[in-house]
């Protein structure tokens, strides 16, 4: 395909996707369903009504997707005190100040707010809150009209936005700094130092290398990380002229891995060494896949096994079988639950973040390595936040100082992600 034609095609393609998405409007959500409570309460004759709660703030929920109104009130003076103990509050809504009103929800005593998540955007609603004490009840005055709507920025997420931006910018900054030739120190990672040796060993023994990219599909970033490491490793394998066996459990992973391995062989100058059958599909089923991989292990006796990607319970079945045939095993995953098993049964394990760093390490490209320095800045932010936060809280808690405590709470809430 010609240059211009295909890029036009590509933009058209993206354009289609986004205009398509814009067409997909929300279907209106039908509102209001709780009505049984309302009729029950209206029929009652108040004998000894509690002092009513009064509406405080009734407003559209800010920074949300619409269809929701926030109602808050000032507690009834009888709530938790007085001779008329309040049992609950019932929130009523109508599209007209004169009614009919219907109950849209309730809140236990002591609570002062309610989210009415059943509104239709653009319609004006009126609210009041009823204070219930046993068989008696009293109403607040009716609110002014209020409409719900959707906003273009989720204001509650602004802290998260800023944290994300800071980390992204530091990663990008160091990528560019490294590209310009700034020298970076990187510590050694034992598992990666051993990769060449492990491939060399398979070559010497004349046995194949097994590569397992985990059992999730390309919609998991661990699989993507595993495949990018495969790209680096496959180049070395091509250079050594060793046999690669890569059974997979997802078809898209198969397609992707073939492209990657093929490119690695081309880059190593040995395109004739590549064959599609190096990467082959078995089954999507987790344990069917493991049964087959175990079979391959005991029959072909690979000298080296790589497990890099997202793993579940199959991790130990494979690693123990690999151990029993005496293979050198290098594993890496960001599944915290499986790390202990890889650590116990494999020779080297890339722990969590190290898996994501591996392809950058192996590539040796300055741009890639720069991003690792950016990650370290992220860690520094996290460490500083933890130290400062714990320090503030501890001092506040011991000295019992109100102002310090509120400072600590404010600081902590930056990381609440809501």
């Amino acid at each position, binding site marked *: 395909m010609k240059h211009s034609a295909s*890029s036009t095609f590509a933009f058209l393609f993206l354009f289609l996707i986004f205009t398509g*998405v814009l067409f997909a409007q929300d279907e209106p959500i039908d509102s209001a369903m709780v009505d049984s409570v309302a009729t029950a309460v209206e029929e009652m004759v108040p004998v000894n009504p509690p002092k009513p709660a009064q509406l405080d703030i009734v407003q559209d929920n800010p920074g949300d997707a619409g269809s929701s109104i926030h109602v808050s009130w000032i507690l009834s003076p009888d709530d938790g005190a007085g001779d008329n103990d309040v049992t609950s509050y019932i929130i009523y809504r109508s599209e007209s100040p004169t009614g009919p009103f219907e109950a849209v929800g309730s809140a236990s005593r002591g609570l002062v707010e309610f989210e009415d998540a059943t509104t239709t955007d653009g319609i004006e609603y009126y609210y009041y809150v009823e204070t219930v004490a046993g068989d008696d009840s009293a109403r607040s005055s009716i609110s002014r009209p209020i409409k719900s709507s959707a*906003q273009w920025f989720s204001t509650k997420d602004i802290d998260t936005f800023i944290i994300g931006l800071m980390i992204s910018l530091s990663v*990008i900054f160091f990528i560019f700094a490294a590209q310009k030739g700034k020298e970076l120190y990187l510590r050694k990672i034992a598992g990666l130092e051993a990769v060449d040796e492990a491939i060399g060993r398979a070559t010497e023994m004349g046995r194949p290398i097994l590569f397992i990219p985990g059992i999730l599909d390309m*919609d998991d970033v661990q699989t993507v990380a595993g495949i990018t490491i495969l790209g680096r490793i496959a180049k070395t394998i091509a250079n050594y002229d060793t046999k690669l066996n890569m059974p997979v459990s997802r078809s898209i992973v198969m*397609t992707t891995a073939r492209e990657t391995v093929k*490119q690695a062989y081309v880059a190593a100058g040995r395109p004739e060494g590549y064959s599609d059958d190096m990467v082959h599909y078995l089954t999507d089923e987790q344990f069917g896949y493991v049964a087959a991989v175990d079979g391959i292990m005991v029959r072909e006796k690979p000298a080296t096994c790589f497990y890099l990607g997202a793993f579940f319970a199959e991790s*130990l079945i494979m690693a123990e079988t690999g151990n029993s045939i005496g293979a050198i095993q290098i594993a890496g995953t960001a599944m915290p639950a499986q790390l202990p098993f890889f650590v116990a049964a494999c020779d080297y394990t890339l722990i969590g973040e190290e898996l994501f760093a591996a392809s950058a390490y192996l590539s040796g490209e300055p741009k890639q390595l720069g991003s690792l320095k950016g*990650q370290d800045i992220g860690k520094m932010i996290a460490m500083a936040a933890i130290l400062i936060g714990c320090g503030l809280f501890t001092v506040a808690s011991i000295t019992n100082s109100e102002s310090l405590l509120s400072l600590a709470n404010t600081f902590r809430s930056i990381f609440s992600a809501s």
Partner: protein
Amino acid sequence: MRREIPLIITAVVGIAFVIQYFIPHSPFDRFEQLFSDWFFIIAACAIWLGALNLLKLSIIKVQRQKKDWQYSVIVIVSWLTMAIAGFAGGRGFQTPGTAFDWLYVNIYTPLSATMFAILAFFVASASYRAFRARNVQATLLLVAGFLVMMGRVLFDDIFFAPLGWDFQPLSEISSFIMNYPNLAGQRAIMIGIALGTVSTALRIMLGIERSYLGGGD
């Protein structure tokens, strides 16, 4: 150019999916759901490639009478049996009582449950080798694993309850390890993973990491 277009798609879509988190307004609030549906559809198309590959390799093995070719015959026959039973069943292929369901219950389920269950043996053999007091790190692994294992089962009830203790020392220790030092390690790993993911995602979106796309043919 065959590499540039995919890179553009990756960058644009990636950034759009980051931004959608912060935009509650329609249509951005539907991005995630839509992508999940699309992905399932793409995966359902791609499985044809995988299935054809499995069948092709099995048939070749039988044709060339390679070692153990007989088992490839079983693979092909099982695949066809399941596929035919499934397609014959129509949309309600999983309804209890159908052939598909029978195969699932009596063959598929015991096979997968047993494959999962042999892990019990491997857990024992792996812990035998790994839990050795070789150095500080290995000793900590050993001690933590040992104590938690003791607290998980009835040792408290067997050893300490007869002494009339209310207190369950082994469970308490086990809970303490799980709730504090274990949690600390988990958190460090989790925060590290978050940063690793962010950085990898950025490298992908910026087009620096592109080996998954293969060559430029």
